[in-house]
C-alpha cells in the first residue's frame, strides 16, 4: 500500500533503511518476547537501555575517562542489563510484585543509575569498532543489522531447543500445571527476565553505537514499540503463544508502517499514537473470542 503511495518507499535504499532502523528494535523485541510468552510484561527496557548505554560509553574509548576496554566494556554493559533483568525477576518471584509494577520500578532505577553516570557531561565515544558498527556495511546492511539477525537466531534457538525457552512457553500456557508437575518455576522466571535484560543491554549498546554518545534517553520509546512489535507479530499478552520469529516479523511490520507513514507525509509525532492504537486493537482482537468466559479483568 505504501509502495503505491510513495515512489521513495519503493526504492532499494529505503528497504535497507528500514532494515537498519529495525535493528535495535528487533533486539529489544527479542528480549521482551520471552517475557510476554510467560504472560508477564516488561516495561523496564527504557531504563535498562539507558543504564547500559551509559556504561558502555564510559567503558570503551571516550572523552570522559581513559578506559579503553573495547569488547569487554560491551560485555559488562550486557551483563548489567542482565543484572537489572534479574532484579525485576527477583522482585516478581520473591516479593510477588506484579511484573508491570516491578519493571516500572526497575526502569526508574535504571534511569536513575544512568543519570548518575551521565553526571552532566555527555560521554562521546571514540572507540573505532563500536562506532563502525553503525556505519560500516556488510552485504549492503550495517553491522548492527547483522547483530540483530544473530540475536534473533540465538533467541530462536533458545526458545526452540533449551529448557528455558520451552518452560517460558509452558509458564505462559498453564503455570499451575507446570508447578504441580514438579517443575520449580521461580528460577526459570528469573532467568527469563535476566535473558530479556541482557537483550536490552545489547540494545543500549547498539543505540550508543548509532548515536556515538551515551544518553540517558537511549531507550526512550523502545519499551512500548517492542511490545507493539511483539503483539503485532502474534504474541499474546496472556502468554503461551508467539515466539521470536513472530516478533521479528512484527518488528518489520511496525517499521514498515512507521516508515511508510512518514513517507506519505504523516507527522512522525503520530508514531506513538499509532502504536498505542495497534496494541489496544490487537489485544482486544485476541481476547474477544474469550469475552464471555473471562468476566473478571483487572
Amino acid at each position: 500500500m505504501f509502495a503505491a503511495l510513495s515512489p521513495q518507499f519503493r526504492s532499494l535504499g529505503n528497504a535497507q533503511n528500514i532494515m537498519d532502523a529495525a535493528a535495535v528494535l528487533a533486539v529489544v523485541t527479542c528480549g521482551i518476547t520471552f517475557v510476554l510468552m510467560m504472560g508477564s510484561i516488561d516495561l523496564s527496557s527504557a531504563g535498562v537501555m539507558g543504564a547500559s548505554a551509559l556504561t558502555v560509553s564510559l567503558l570503551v574509548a571516550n572523552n570522559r575517562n581513559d578506559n579503553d576496554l573495547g569488547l569487554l566494556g560491551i560485555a559488562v554493559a550486557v551483563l548489567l542489563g542482565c543484572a537489572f533483568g534479574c532484579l525485576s525477576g527477583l522482585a516478581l518471584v520473591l516479593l510477588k510484585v506484579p511484573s508491570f509494577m516491578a519493571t516500572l520500578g526497575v526502569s526508574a532505577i535504571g534511569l536513575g543509575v544512568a543519570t548518575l553516570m551521565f553526571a552532566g557531561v555527555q560521554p562521546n565515544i571514540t572507540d573505532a569498532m563500536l562506532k563502525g558498527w553503525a556505519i560500516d556495511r556488510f552485504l549492503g546492511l550495517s553491522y548492527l543489522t547483522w547483530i540483530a539477525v544473530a540475536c534473533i537466531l540465538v533467541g530462536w534457538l533458545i526458545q526452540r531447543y533449551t529448557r528455558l525457552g520451552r518452560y517460558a512457553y509452558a509458564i505462559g500456557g498453564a503455570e499451575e500445571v507446570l508447578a504441580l508437575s514438579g517443575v520449580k518455576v521461580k528460577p526459570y522466571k528469573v532467568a527469563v527476565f535476566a535473558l530479556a535484560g541482557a537483550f536490552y543491554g545489547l540494545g543500549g549498546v547498539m543505540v550508543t553505537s548509532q548515536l556515538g554518545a551515551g544518553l540517558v534517553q537511549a531507550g526512550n520509546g523502545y519499551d512500548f514499540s517492542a511490545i507493539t512489535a511483539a503483539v503485532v507479530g502474534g504474541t499474546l499478552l496472556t502468554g503461551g503463544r508467539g515466539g521470536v520469529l513472530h516478533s521479528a516479523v512484527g518488528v518489520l511490520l511496525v517499521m514498515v508502517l512507521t516508515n511508510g507513514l512518514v513517507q506519505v507525509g504523516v507527522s512522525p509525532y503520530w508514531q506513538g499514537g499509532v502504536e498505542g492504537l495497534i496494541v489496544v486493537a490487537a489485544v482486544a482482537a485476541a481476547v474477544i473470542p474469550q469475552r464471555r468466559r473471562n468476566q473478571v479483568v483487572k
Partner: protein
Amino acid sequence: MSTPVAVAEPAANPAGPRRAGRLTGFMPLIALVALVLALAIADSDFLTTRSLTAALRTAAPLIVLAAGATLVVLCGGIDLSIAALASLSTVLLALWLPDLGGLATPVVILAATAIGAVQGVAHVLLRIPSFIVTLGGMSILSAVALVVSGAGTVRVVDDTPVKWLELYVGGYVPMSAAVAIIVVAVIAVVLKVTPLQSWVSATGYSESAARLAGTPVDLVKIAAFCVSGACAGLAAVMLVSRQYSGGPTMADNLLLPAVAAIVVGGTAITGGHGSVWRSLAGALVVTLLRVGLPIVGVPSAYEQILYGVIIVVCVALTLDWSKVSIIK
C-alpha cells in the same frame, strides 16, 4: 486452586494480620512525621512558612493526580495514563485559554473526564487489562499532545483565568493545595455517604463475587476512570497556573511519583484495600522526599532510583498475598 488456603488463613491467624494491618495503616503518617522531623533537623530553615508553602504548592498537582488514580487502584486496576493525560490537558488549556477565557478550565476538565471515560469503556467492554489500555492510552495521548502543540511549549499570555490558584487562603495556605485537599475530601465524603464505597471495595476485593451480588461493577470501573481523568485535568490546570505555559511532556515525570504516592499510602495494588486519604499522605511523603533530598545533600539523580525502590517495596508490603496465587 488457592481456595483452601484462603479459607484457612483467617482462622489460623486471627490477631496477627489485624495488628499488622493497623500498623501499616499508620505507616504513611509515621513516615510523614519522621520525614518532617528529619528535614527540620537537617535544615533549620525548613519549618519556616516560606519553604512549607513552597512544598505544599509542589505537592498540589501530585495530590490530585494520586487521589484520582487511587480510585482506579481501589477497583483493582491501574491507570498509567494520568501523567500523559495531564500533559495533554496543559496543552489544551494553554491553547484554549485565549478563546474561552474562564470557561477553559471546566472545559479542559470535562475533556479529560471524557478521555478517562473512553479508557474505562475500552477496559470494561473489550475486557482488556487496565494497564494495557492505559499504557496504550499513554502512548496515544502523548502523540496527540505532541501534534496539537507542534512539539513545543505553548505560552499562556493572559493567565488571569487561572490566576486564582496562585492566591493564598488566609495568607498562608496556597490555594492550589487547598483545592487539592478539598478534592480529596470531596471524593472521600462522596464515597462515604453513597453506596459507592462498598461498591468500589467489593469490586476491588472480589470482582466476581461483587458481580454476583448485583454490584454495577462495570459502571463503577468506568466511573473510577472518569474521576481519574478529571483529576488529571485539574492537575493540569494547577501546573499551567504555576508555569504560565502548557507543554506536551510537562507532567510526564509525575507518573512515577503518583504511583509511588498511592503505594506509599498503603493502598493495595490488588484492589479493595486503601483510601484517598492514604494517597494524600503518600503524596506528601513523596513530595517531602523530593524537596528533602537536595537539602540533605543527595544528588537529585537518586530521586528516580528511590521511586523505583519505593514502588517495588511498597507494592510488596501492601499486596494481598492470600488473593493472588499466580503473579504474572
